[in-house]
């Protein structure tokens, strides 16, 4: 596909979206300010830093982890995250010898309140087609070379349950505050498509 073709295709859809917005606004079904507020929410307020705080709390506070295991929706709401596309949350924990990976083979189900809107790869056919049949290959493509004996559990989000992976806490961060620990938690690690960063990796990135 040439750049030119790509560009004209984008313009066509942009025009179509604009026309639809004009129509729905004229009809009084939607309001421009509402759309702005929705966009701003997902650009600045609801994203993977929310989930990172949940993971950091789970790493730091054994009582919180217990509550997260018992009722993840309620435990996550304690930190102020709830609602659309996270109405029914389940937390799944990685451990030595066990790795969890979340997918939605049927559409793009993803825990919005804790991770925000999904990245393009999560919604696209290459990931959705392969995650259930070849999770080890997918993880290798993400740079995760798991031991051959590690059990891999794929969670296909086929209903309204949304899954948050609690990655393993990396060594070398003993005594860190929750805020510091949250810096180690990446979006991909909460999908199961990555590990949490090590303190050394974090330092190198900063």
């Amino acid at each position, binding site marked *: 596909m040439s750049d030119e073709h790509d560009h004209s295709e984008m313009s066509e859809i942009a025009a179509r979206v604009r026309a639809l917005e004009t129509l729905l606004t004229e009809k009084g079904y939607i309001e421009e300010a509402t759309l702005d507020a929705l966009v701003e929410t997902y650009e600045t307020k609801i994203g993977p830093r929310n989930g990172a705080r949940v993971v950091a709390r789970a790493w730091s506070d054994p009582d919180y982890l217990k509550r997260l295991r018992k009722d993840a929706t309620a435990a996550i709401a304690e930190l102020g995250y709830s609602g659309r596309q996270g109405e029914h949350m389940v937390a799944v924990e990685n451990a030595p010898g066990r790795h969890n990976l979340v997918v939605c083979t049927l559409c793009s189900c993803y825990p919005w309140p804790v991770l925000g809107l999904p990245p393009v*790869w999560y919604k696209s056919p290459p990931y959705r087609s392969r995650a259930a049949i070849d999770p080890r290959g997918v993880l290798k493509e993400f740079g995760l070379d798991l031991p051959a004996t590690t059990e891999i559990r794929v969670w296909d989000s086929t209903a309204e349950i949304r899954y948050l992976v609690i990655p393993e806490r990396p060594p070398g961060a003993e005594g860190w505050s929750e805020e510091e620990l949250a810096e180690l938690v990446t979006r991909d690690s909460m999908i199961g498509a990555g590990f949490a960063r090590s303190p050394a990796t974090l330092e190198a990135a900063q």
Partner: protein
Amino acid sequence: MNGAQDLGGMMGFGPIAREPNEPVFHAEWEKRALAMTLAAGACGLWTIDMSRSARESLPPAEYLAKSYYEIWMRGLEKLLLASGMASEIEIALGRALSPPRQVKTVLKAGDVAVALARGAPYARPAPKPARFAAGDTVRTKVINPTTHTRLPRYARGKLGVIEAARGVHVFPDSSASGRGEDPQWLYTVRLAGKELWGEDADPTIAVSIDAFEPYLDPA
């Protein structure tokens, strides 16, 4: 329906294209597409299951060629038509030619935070006791409905074990087809890799689906 959305186990799509430091949106129109979908949904004339059904009933070649927000826009157009909120000519012109249909709510900017934080929980009171309990062996049904279902093709006719009962939820197969909420028990069912993909499959792999009771038989 056995549409292009049911991707589990398909092959040949190539590598997973990850984007470092990916922005939340890749174009202005994507922002409007997302927000418009949520705001139009808030009007209350369709369910989330109807919107999934609208997207996945696109012809497979179209579904697979479009970006995700393009699919959403095509789905939204279909929902607007089906609900009588807009006509084909209005959508083509981008102009209102007739009075609006009455809708349940028009989402205001000031209500966005509260509406998102509240969400739309799908759990419902149990109409009857659960048929299965954790540890039970079940076989998923072989079904091929021409309408919306959330039982993926790769997981039909397979033996699995109930891992957890998740309560009673709105049943998408009914909700998508305008047959009301028809709440059903929902279970997480663990299926071994070998059961799904054959003897050659990696023995360390298991996949779970969240399956509604009507998808399951005792085994």
